[in-house]
């Protein structure tokens, strides 16, 4: 029975179609969990909304851009201080959030004037900032405020500013994934091609689907610099708004997160003929393979090999130190979607770690295709897992460590299972060679933790392991 109906799901049997236990010899021709489907109300799913998929994941990463959220205060408040994407300009993107603070009268009479005033105020208060993204939210979408028209008026009044609008209220789609899509397509429709980038190298790429989590972008930038490759746009880690307007000039789109940003790569290919090259940036084998592919594209293979050799010499011994101590560790991955397939094989190959359960919040069919192909037999593959399912799965597979978010981390802590922040990392970056050593180190520190042993000890027992009375 490779599709699994868990005990906790007996009253919602449709969940059986979302949970797959891989068996030797099976593949996705046989079974593929349903995904990107509506959540069952009341299930305590882990999903967020599509507004956050646009603002929090992609747009809000930009380091020079006001994020004007047209809606009640909560949509702004809640998408602030929840991410770890630093920038090289002092983290402007992390420090501020902007809201039109919609009140009842604006719901009744319309909020466009409020929006227009708030946009002008924001530019007035922060005169160095000339770029803005405006987002709709549930109520402003419901009442039909025309944010594009407002943006046009403000740009008319302020010739030095540029504004992008993103109409993606929280109730759109079934998860944050919808927000990724809306922002991708909107951007390529409206902004790509409106700025001509300065070309400084004969090798140019866009690096797509990397948000500088924990400094990922900045770490990989060192590689591009060494290879002499110009990154015209990072989509969107540590990036300026105008960088992304020049994406049409890259010779190659290198895609890391295909789920959140594959759309724009596809459009850039369709419209500008820029080839799309998907790589994995986590893990030694994958990173080396990715570098090789990019270098092959440009015909600079020897540079790539030199870089890989240098990095291996520097970091491989450390990786191996951890591998020696981590092999056989059982890991679960409960994140958004793509990291399931990015990580499952890299931790296996590079660290000897077995991934025993994976749950995706917003992965699509193609994500499950990839992860089931790369993943092991005996592993659970779950779409939109909920809390009771997590408990049951933990009982079934007994993971040693779970890569997930901090809240779920706090939950599984009670079960004596350490977590690693699978979204924002514990102490990143995790991409690249150095980054994967960081990941290994964090995993080692999580698993080799005396507190877990202490937590499991009942001091009222007679054979308590912690009775460390000193010898005289």
């Amino acid at each position: 029975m490779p599709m699994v109906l868990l005990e906790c799901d007996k009253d919602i049997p449709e969940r059986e179609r979302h949970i797959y236990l891989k068996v030797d010899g099976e593949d996705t021709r046989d079974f593929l969990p349903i995904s990107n489907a509506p959540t069952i109300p009341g299930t305590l799913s882990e999903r967020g909304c599509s507004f956050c998929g646009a603002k929090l994941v992609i747009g809000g990463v930009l380091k020079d851009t006001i994020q004007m959220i047209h809606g009640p205060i909560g949509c702004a408040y809640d998408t602030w201080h929840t991410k770890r994407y630093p920038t090289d300009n002092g983290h402007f993107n992390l420090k501020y959030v902007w809201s039109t603070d919609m009140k009842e009268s604006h719901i009744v009479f319309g909020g466009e004037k409020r929006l227009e005033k708030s946009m002008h105020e924001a530019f007035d208060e922060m005169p160095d900032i000339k770029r803005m993204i405006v987002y709709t939210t549930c109520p402003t979408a419901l009442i039909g405020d025309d944010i594009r028209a407002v943006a046009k008026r403000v740009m008319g009044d302020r010739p030095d500013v540029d504004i992008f609008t993103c109409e993606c209220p929280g109730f759109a789609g079934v998860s944050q994934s919808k927000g990724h899509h809306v922002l991708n397509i909107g951007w390529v429709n409206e902004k790509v091609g409106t700025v001509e980038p300065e070309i400084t190298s004969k090798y140019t790429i866009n690096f797509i689907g990397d948000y500088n989590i924990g400094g990922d972008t900045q770490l990989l930038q060192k590689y591009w610099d060494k290879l002499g490759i110009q990154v015209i746009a990072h989509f969107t880690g540590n990036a300026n708004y105008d960088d992304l307007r020049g994406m049409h000039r890259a010779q190659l789109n290198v895609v890391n997160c295909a789920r959140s940003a594959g759309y724009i790569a596809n459009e850039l290919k369709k419209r500008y003929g820029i080839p799309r090259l998907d790589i994995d940036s986590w893990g030694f084998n994958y990173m080396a393979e990715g570098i090789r592919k990019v270098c092959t594209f440009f015909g600079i293979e020897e540079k790539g090999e030199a870089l890989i050799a240098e990095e291996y010499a520097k970091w491989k011994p450390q990786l191996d130190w951890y591998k020696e101590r981590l092999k056989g560790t059982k890991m679960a991955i409960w994140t958004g979607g793509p990291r399931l397939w990015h990580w499952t094989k890299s931790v296996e190959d590079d660290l000897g770690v077995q991934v025993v359960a994976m749950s995706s919040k917003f992965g699509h069919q193609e994500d499950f295709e990839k992860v089931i192909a790369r993943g092991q037999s005996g592993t659970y593959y779950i779409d939109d897992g909920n809390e009771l399912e997590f408990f049951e799965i933990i009982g079934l597979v007994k993971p040693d460590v779970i890569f997930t978010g901090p809240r779920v981390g706090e939950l599984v802590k009670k079960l004596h299972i350490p977590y690693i922040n699978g979204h924002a990392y514990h102490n990143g970056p995790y991409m690249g060679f150095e980054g994967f050593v960081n990941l290994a180190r964090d995993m080692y520190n999580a698993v080799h933790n005396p507190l877990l042993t202490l937590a499991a000890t009942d001091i009222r027992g007679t054979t308590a392991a912690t009775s460390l009375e000193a010898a005289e």
Partner: protein
Amino acid sequence: MGCEITTKERAGVINPMYDCQPAGAQFAGIGIKDSIPLVHGGQGCCMFVRLLFAQHFKENFDIASTSLHEDSAVFGGHKRIQDGVMVLAQRYPDLRVIPLITTCSTEVIGDDIEGNIAQCNAALKEAFPGRKIHIVPVHTPSFKGSQVGGYSECLLSVIKTIATHKGAPNGKLNLFPGWVNPGDVMLLKRYMREMDVDATVFMDTEDFDSPMMPDKSIHTHGRTTVEDIAGAANAIGSLALARYEGGTSAQYLQTEFEVPNTQLNSPYGIANTDAMLQAVSRITGKPIPESLVRERGIAIDALQDLAHMFFAGKRVALFGHPDLVIGLAQFCLEVELKPVLLLLGDDNSKYKKDPRILDLKAKADWDMEVVCNADLWELEKRVKNPDYQIDLILGHSKGRYVAIEHNIPMVRVGFPTFDRAGLYRKPTMGYQGAMDLGESIANTLFAHMEFNKDREWLLNTW
């Protein structure tokens, strides 16, 4: 000299101080034992609030969503409410309360909450005969008020729904502390124990600081039971310790069930705590015990080491929940700190007439400004302005970068305080809270002197 009460002039908000109403309602809802709030709206409306609570408490709280999608926006969310309630009831057999919390979207759509609840009640009765689940309607459109009012609204609705009739007097005291930390709840419960008073705290969040246990049991939930709530109508009195967070519930119990309500200043600082204990003593006839007199003396003793040496004349900016900000401003005066800027973060028009603010205004022989409907950009602008000379910031972690960027000492207090460990466990109320807060302020100033090598040698001996 004197106090000016103003309102933010901008329409928009840069860096809000409060979350929206549904967030506050969710906080009240998780304070009940065997309760899972069901948020009727987009998934983000509960997911990010759950994250916020996790950031602050380093704990997971169970909150469900009706997972509103486009179809509901068009056809209404009735089915999603009813499915959500039934799925919760089926999968959580111990569940007794479901606060059903609306959001901006579902209020705009206009879903008939009360009608849906009636239908749910009928369906539950059929599916689970003999089991009673209280579905509490909580109307909290995000475009009104803020988390402050949302907390109060949910609390009131819970009481209205569950405390439905007057029974035999139970001799208990109802305590409404407002939106405070487990540390404050524990302090208040300890004070009541030491006074030999049987009190119920609404909500008892002690277990929001919960253990890792050898048997892997999970204890992270509210302690206030359905019986506690039902019993609120039979208490000997209510103490409302926060004017904007639960005060309406205490008032309701007085109006509806003749439970006498005493509205007090929030017990921040010595004098406010005195008044609270004296009120408890008056209502219950129980004397204030020696142990609390001693604790009071220790607090004053500790603060006296700090007040005129280190605190006097220091200019303080405060932001956060209104009862907290006002209470801490009163505390500041007790220890010679000078509150020069109070930021209150929503458009509640009552703040300007708050007797405590009017009292501060009457006392102010220094420049003081109260900014209503403020955001943290109002703070940042003033911190940058040399006229203000802010020496210290008291507020929650959402204002952390103002302090970091401008090298101003900041003590984290209120909600949320996610960038410091363990604060949820520490009291801020009561004598101990005043002392701990005073010492935190001192130690923060001391570390600041050391980092900046600014008279750090003063501390060689004091």
